[in-house]
């Protein structure tokens, strides 16, 4: 096969892998957005903290990797519940702006706590995935990436089905619409929120663990979450399939921009392209690809 074509395919494939990571991060955001309408700015910090926790479980406490992942998930879930309980529940019924600001405060707090607890050094995770990449017909995929792709797709499918068909999922969607009416339906809004924060933080933990496997662990890890913003919005904020499609699209776009545009325009267009694409898409579809147009009636 022609090398130019292989180059393209390889870019797309690695873009998909990257995109799945974005999608996983995006799903974490979308869960909370969907049920509470809050954009949780501290999500990136949770991702970073999870990476640190998993690292220290594996290196300092010599916990086997899978157990460490499990423990990280549990810790993150508990963190989610505690966050909801201590910080967001008192804000029930307050303007959404203030709540979002609280999550920004939380992100500042968590980032700084991470520095205090885990130090500022760059750490390298002893990845359990073999470094040998898998080669299929000349296409190279690392084993880490295969795991990332599988788990993000599985998680997204699970969440999608949960929201669409389960009783609790329906309750969550209802809560997102009107909290007080949901209460009148006998839905325990507190429970719903605690659950959604826990689940979202667990998703964040999953992305944190995967990120730890591909990147250096340091406080800067939390910034990756900002990279996922275009994915969330492109997909349409409250849609799980949207988050997946958005994530994949951004991953592929980023890589193609890196592979082609960077040669022509130069100067690192790779980073800006997702944002430019996002802007253009919003001009055409103001509610993202999968977002519902907010109906306004008077």
């Amino acid at each position, binding site marked *: 096969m022609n090398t130019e074509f292989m180059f393209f395919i390889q870019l797309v494939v690695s873009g998909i892998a990257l995109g799945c990571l974005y999608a996983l991060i995006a799903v974490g955001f979308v869960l909370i957005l969907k049920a509470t309408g809050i954009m949780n700015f501290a999500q990136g910090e949770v991702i970073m903290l999870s990476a640190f926790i998993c690292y220290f479980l594996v290196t300092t406490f010599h916990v086997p990797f899978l157990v460490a992942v499990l423990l990280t998930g549990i810790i993150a879930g508990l963190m989610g519940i505690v966050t909801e309980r201590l910080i967001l529940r008192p804000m029930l*019924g307050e303007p959404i702006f203030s709540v979002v600001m609280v999550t920004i405060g939380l992100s500042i707090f968590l980032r700084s706590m991470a520095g205090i607890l885990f130090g500022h050094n760059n750490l390298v995770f002893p990845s359990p995935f073999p470094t040998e990449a898998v080669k299929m017909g000349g296409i190279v995929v690392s084993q880490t990436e295969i795991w990332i792709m599988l788990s993000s797709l599985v998680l997204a499918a699970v969440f999608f089905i949960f929201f669409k068909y389960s009783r609790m999922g*329906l309750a969550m969607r209802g809560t997102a*619409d009107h909290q007080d009416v949901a209460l009148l339906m006998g839905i325990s809004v507190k429970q719903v929120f605690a659950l959604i924060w826990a689940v979202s933080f667990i998703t964040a933990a999953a992305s944190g663990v995967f990120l730890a496997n591909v990147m250096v662990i340091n406080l800067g890890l939390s910034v990756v979450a900002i990279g996922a913003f275009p994915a969330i919005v492109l997909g349409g904020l409250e849609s799980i399939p949207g988050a997946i499609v958005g994530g994949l699209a951004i991953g592929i776009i980023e890589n193609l921009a890196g592979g082609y545009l960077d040669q022509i325009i130069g100067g690192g267009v790779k980073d800006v392209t997702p944002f430019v694409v996002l802007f253009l898409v919003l001009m055409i579809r103001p509610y993202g690809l999968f977002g519902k147009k907010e109906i306004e009636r008077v």
Partner: protein
Amino acid sequence: MLKVNNIEVVYNDVILVLKGISLEVPDGAVVALLGANGAGKTTTLKAISGILDSQNGELEDGQIEFMGNPIHRLDPDRIVKKGITMVPEGRRVFENLNVMENIKIGAHTRTDRRQVKRDVEKTFDYFPVLEGRKDRLAIFLSGGEQQMLVICRALISKPKLMMLDEPSLGLAPLLVKEIFAMLRVVNDKQKTGILLVEQNARVALNFAKYGYIMENGKIVLDGPTDLLVKNKDVKEFYLGVTDKMEKKSYAQVKHYKRRKRWLS
């Protein structure tokens, strides 16, 4: 069935809205709660269903009992599980869910999924219009259709006591009749108690057995409805009929200002 004993409610820690309300709904009875705008009817219902917290309100004093158990300290979802369902005022449907999902969410507290399915079909019998709009998002429904939907949603939870806050608001006259006829059937067949808040006094007093009249956070008058309709003040201020039992024309009330208020 429901006993409300001398409750006081304060909003934002300062505004005393309910100044000692007591009322009672006997088993399977239909009770109406009437009163001017801002009298505190909605607040009373909110206090009973326990959602004052999320509205900056607080139950300062008094007790609420349901089937002999105090409920005024329970979370709203607990209260619903005990069998009290409220239809809030202002057609609060879940706009981003479709009609079917809206109804299903009403059955959140029920565990018998099969029976729920059958009950959904039954409620559609009451409101055939909704069946045709099953898959439409609730926000696309017209005001009347939304009102039917919230009543359906409440019915599906099989409540022991149903509290309705102005169900006739904005409904066409024919529909008002239909809804009340339906409520009557529910009351008869399922022995569901009904606590009704209405502005449309004529309909409400006709429908209920017993009535309470509220002004400024206090109950000022109560009694069986057949006695209430004979009360002179009720006649004048709620039914709009003069002593000679004939309706006043709105065109005539023009420059006629009244300042009389209950007991003041």
